[in-house]
């Protein structure tokens, strides 16, 4: 039963109080049920979670490596070897004196013979008489803050001791440490990129499917005067919403994981395992930069979801044309 019949009156548009008519909020032109929204959100959330874990791990390694480098790079050491016909105590004193006069060296600490022997205890144990062993002596140097030590000059002075003393500025160790940390960070970045790429592929596939399912909608939009940009924007808006939902759900889960891990490591800091974890990962303080990184991953995922869907739709529309 028809409720109304068209008027016979001449049509003269006369705007009147139409503002009072309640209308629902303008919805998406792409039907929500035509997109596998729940599944896509789950895929995006899982991908973001994995990418966030990788990014967070890279952040932890980077911070730990920086801590190690700072602590190691602030010190140097001189090793004085016993040699036949030489007075090791005199060599130690001369080496220490040379170090004190080197610009950029803040302090010099001579390890006594007893202290040097104590350094060997972890390897040779206690209760062994090492009096007759030719044990090298150590001199620990601390770098002055903000001044680069004149290593060349110090090496030149130590060379005067006939090869009995050598300087170790830890450069090789720092280089290896830096290489290892950079490799780990590169692996983590690679994982983030791969996960983002996989996420983009999933979005591209879902978009193609959505365009195919909404072929009728797309055609009607074109015939009523929509251009490709308008149609692409409609799909992009829908997929961006899904990307934001999935991206932030995954990032939130990753942030909770890191928060709980940080809490647990703090709570059980006295345990033996915690010491080892701290030795490798530093103090496991994720920090604002870590959470910021996870947030950035979520934004990247959401943004890439929108961009990928837009590009996919435009390519599909071109091929349909």
């Amino acid at each position, binding site marked *: 039963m028809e*409720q109304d019949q068209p008027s016979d009156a001449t049509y003269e548009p006369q*705007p009147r109080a139409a503002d009072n008519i309640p209308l629902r909020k303008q919805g998406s032109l792409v039907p929500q049920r035509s997109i596998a929204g729940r599944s896509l959100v789950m895929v995006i959330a899982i991908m973001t979670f994995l990418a966030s874990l990788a990014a967070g791990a890279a952040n932890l390694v980077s911070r730990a490596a920086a801590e190690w480098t700072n602590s190691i790079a602030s010190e140097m050491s001189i090793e004085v070897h016993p040699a036949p016909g030489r007075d090791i105590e005199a060599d130690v004193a001369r080496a220490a004196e040379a170090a004190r006069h080197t610009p950029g060296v803040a302090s010099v600490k001579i390890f006594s013979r007893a202290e040097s022997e104590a350094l060997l205890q972890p390897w040779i144990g206690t209760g062994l008489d090492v009096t007759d062993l030719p044990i090298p002596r150590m001199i620990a140097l601390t770098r002055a803050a903000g001044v680069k030590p004149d290593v060349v000059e110090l090496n030149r002075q130590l060379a005067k001791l006939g090869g009995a003393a050598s300087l170790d500025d830890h450069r090789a160790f720092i280089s290896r440490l830096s290489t290892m940390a950079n490799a780990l960070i590169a692996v983590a970045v690679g994982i983030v990129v791969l996960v983002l790429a996989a996420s983009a592929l999933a979005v591209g596939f879902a978009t193609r499917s959505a365009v195919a399912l909404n072929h009728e909608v797309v055609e009607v939009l074109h015939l009523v005067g929509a251009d490709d940009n308008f149609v692409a924007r409609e799909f992009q808006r829908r997929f961006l919403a899904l990307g934001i939902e999935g991206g932030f759900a995954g990032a939130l889960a990753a942030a909770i994981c890191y928060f709980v891990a940080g809490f647990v490591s703090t709570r059980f800091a006295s345990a033996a395992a915690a010491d080892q974890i701290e030795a490798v990962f530093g103090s496991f303080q994720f920090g604002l930069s870590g959470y910021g990184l996870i947030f950035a991953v979520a934004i990247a995922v959401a943004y890439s979801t929108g961009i990928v869907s837009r590009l996919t739709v435009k390519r599909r529309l071109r091929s349909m044309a």
Partner: protein
Amino acid sequence: MIRFEGVGVRYGVGPEILRDLTFAIAPYSFQFLTGPSGAGKTTLLKLIMLSLRPTRGIIEMYGDNVAQMSEAELTMVRRKTGVVFQEFRLLDHLTTFENVALPLRVQGRAEPSYRAEVVELLQWVGLGERMHVLPPVLSGGEKQRAAIARALIAKPDFLIADEPTGNVDPTLARRLLRLFVELHRLGTAIIIATHDYSLMEQFAARRLVLSGGHVIVEQPRGRGVRL
């Protein structure tokens, strides 16, 4: 306004559905497109509404060759053209109001700027009380009127209607046709595809008769209202 010259259409490697179509549609004109079922009326309308490219020949719209138009130009031509589809093609997830407002929405206009126009037109076509309803709930006649309102809302220069009275009773068909006549008097060129001869007899309008893939142009005749 629209000029066809030697236009032919074939699907794939099959025979030509339409052959050597040569005719013109003038501004402010009113014509029927008729012919037996399967004669190619819908295919010809698809050519006119730019949803199909001809296999050969030239189609000019508003003075420009369609084959040489950019995407932006094609979009602008589509915006000057209102279409009433035989099967309505309303979007089922949008309300009647949203369906009718679609041509204005795709032009980037904000809803407050066209709300009054859409409400006014819906009331005029007798759908004032049905503007919040989704198409699946509408009757055939209501869908028809919603489709017509959608075609009219952007005040097109040219209106294409494919069997616009095919799903309604004769009384309503006459009323709907009167809407088109009214629109024609306001300055819109109109082409209505129908094989309802009794309907055509009511108006002395030009007829494009499709037969055997060719088009024959018949000048206004009959005792109906002269257009």
